[in-house]
């Protein structure tokens, strides 16, 4: 009986330590981010913009209090007053901008919702889709920072609403509008000059949803969605895709230079080379990965990573592929684990019987 009491004490304190340093500490270290279940209707973006308005209002109030405090002091130096007034002006300017952003985003996503309601004409869409092929032609040539991705399965990979938004305004759709004073500077900005009417957008998206579809393997889904920016060195994948085998070292080196050139262009576009994803599945929690891919700004405000608009199903495929690369022992672990544990259960039972036989004459 005494042994069980002692065991209970040991287990209790061990669990307190474990819960304290693992789940509890991690919940305090990382801000909790709500996901939106891979629905792209602008709710997240408008929420984000509203939060910025609230934060700016708070900062403005702080600046005003500061001024009041300074003015309350007899013969406060003039320069302090000027400084405080300038701070207020700065926050006022930021507030106007933040409020404008809320309006702009609401307007944009309302527009997207109305385009989604239009009656689409698939054959008109097919005709207009030709314009897309000017860039998305599979030539593997970098345009404005990245190699335009293949559109062969675009209708299955990405969310319909997201595609509408992307054709309407690529920077707004991928929630990186803060990077561009004008969306025309975005690598895909020219779409705004090429596809100009809402009806045209509805037609193209409907065409893609019906014709550019197909069941993708996890690796293919990953390559179409992520590889124009990210490499996976453990799977020999670079920004140019799967690395071919070369017989001659000279050819391998020539290919490597091509990769480095492509990486330099991606780096110039993104600000830094996006990280290799080989180990990402173990470096981030599942919740982080999910909310980050759905809307990168939520986890890393200001990041240049665009929202890619994957559907939930295809996010799962991307995750599966990253698991295959970054945690390949999972199937083996799950296969062997129960047997090892069973072995030690049997071991403990036999050891208990032995102990009993050894101790039977002692008390």
């Amino acid at each position, binding site marked *: 009986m005494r042994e069980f009491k002692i065991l209970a004490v040991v287990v209790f304190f061990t669990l307190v330590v474990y819960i304290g340093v693992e789940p509890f500490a991690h919940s305090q270290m990382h801000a909790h981010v709500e996901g939106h279940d891979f629905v792209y209707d602008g709710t997240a973006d408008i929420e984000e913009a509203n939060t910025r308005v609230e934060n700016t209002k708070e900062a403005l109030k702080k600046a005003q209090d500061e001024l009041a405090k300074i003015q309350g002091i007899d013969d406060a130096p003039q320069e302090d007053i000027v400084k405080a007034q300038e701070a207020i002006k700065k926050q006022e300017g930021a507030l106007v901008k933040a409020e404008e952003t809320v309006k702009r985003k609401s307007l944009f996503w309302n527009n997207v919702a109305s385009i989604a309601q239009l009656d689409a004409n698939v054959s008109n869409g097919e005709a207009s889709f030709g314009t897309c092929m000017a860039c998305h032609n599979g030539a593997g040539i970098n345009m404005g920072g990245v190699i335009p991705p293949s559109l062969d399965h675009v209708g299955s990979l990405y969310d319909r609403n997201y595609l509408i938004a992307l054709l309407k305004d690529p920077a707004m759709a991928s929630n990186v509008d803060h990077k561009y004073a004008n969306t025309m500077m975005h690598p895909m900005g020219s779409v705004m000059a090429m596809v100009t009417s809402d009806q045209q957008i509805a037609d193209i998206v409907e065409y893609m949803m019906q014709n550019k579809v197909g069941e993708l393997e996890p690796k293919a889904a990953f390559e179409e969605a992520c590889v124009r920016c990210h490499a996976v060195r*453990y799977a020999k994948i670079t920004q140019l895709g799967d690395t071919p085998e070369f017989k001659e070292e000279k050819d391998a080196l020539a290919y490597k230079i091509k990769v480095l050139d492509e990486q330099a262009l991606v780096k110039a576009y993104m600000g830094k080379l996006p*990280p290799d994803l080989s180990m990402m599945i*173990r*470096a981030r929690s599942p919740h982080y990965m999910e909310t980050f891919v759905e809307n990168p700004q939520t986890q890393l405000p200001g990041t240049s990573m665009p929202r890619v608009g994957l559907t939930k199903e295809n996010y799962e495929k991307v995750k599966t592929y990253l698991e295959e690369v970054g945690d390949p022992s999972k199937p*083996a672990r*799950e296969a062997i684990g129960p047997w090892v544990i069973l072995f030690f259960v049997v071991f403990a039972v036999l050891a208990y019987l032995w102990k009993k036989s050894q101790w039977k004459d002692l*008390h």
Partner: protein
Amino acid sequence: MAHFDENAKPFSNQWLNDRLAIDTVKRVLSTEYWIPKNINFLWAMGMILAATFGLLVVSGIFLLMYYKPDVNLAFDSVNHTIMSEVGFGWLWRHIHGVAASVVFLIIYIHMLTGIYYSSYKRGRELIWISGMLLFVTFSAEAFSGYMLPWGQMSYWAGMVITNLFEGGSLHLTGLVEWIRGDYVPGDAYLTRFFMLHVFLLPLIIIGLIVFHFASLRLPHVNNQEGEEIDFEEAAKLYKEGKKKESKVIPFSPVFLSKDIFVMGVYFILFFFLVFYNFDFAMDPVNFDPADGLQTPPHIYPEWYFLWSYEILRPFPKNPGLIAFLIAQVIFFLLPFIDRSPNVAPAHKRGLFVIWFWVLVVDMIALTILGKLPPEGVFNTLGTVAAVIFLLMWPILFIITKLEKKL
């Protein structure tokens, strides 16, 4: 020259006895190494530690065959070569990682058991001191091992910990550079910690384990009541077959049979962690490759260093370092700070039992607060817990001085 039996067959019992005295060795170290009967499962922690150390050595040897101590290769040799190209490499790595973490849990249980039952007093001081030396060497071993995967946390924890040697306002930057072999952690740094981790420190640990066992042989193991046993008399009773009356049991096979049962239960838990919950021992941040240009948002040591880290953190630089130094050495002095004449479990020692549980709760609080961001209420609590820890030692001196002989 001693007498040798010329007719003994080579490697027969007699032949070995003449040369190695194996019967005597066996008697002294196992069959007539007497252990008190009045013990509970906490007395098995020593053997569990030995077994876990064994697992660390074996898994370490397998990892060593594929690990590459080079800043350009280390990360991939661990995360790619070992984890996906070497057969069962993942298993050895997870065993090694989980064992490195769990071994500290058992060390802490073992230490606190020693404190609770006053097993560091009156003849057992050297057991305690050699145990503390083991704790410190294990800490160095854990730290040097943590550098090897060369991830973000390896790099930044290495940076922070080696910076401590600057000595605050002493500004011993030369010493820090000498330890690192460079201005910042780099290749020279990685290879020397590799050497420490796989050679020098394990060697010292093995030596200390032998010393720890040796220091135990004469004073004998303590028991649940702190009772002073006449081992010769008790052994005589046992050998006469009066096992019920005798207060002792032989190390082998009686004591061992209980140890092995406890070990079996422990291994169920251990391998559950290895297969299903290894993440706690392998911080996600360390799966990002080391990057000297990007500091992770939170830098924290592994859980077993958090309490002393939290004693360092809440104070200004110099007092913090002094408090940290005190935390590192104070446990060594425990047998001399405790002035009580009694060897007894804490619940029989009056105020000491309160002192003991305050120590446990305070160290757990420090551990948890050491991982939390040092902001707001956590910062205040951390400071309070650190101050309490420092006050515990003069208080111990006073209350044990006042303790009456039982």
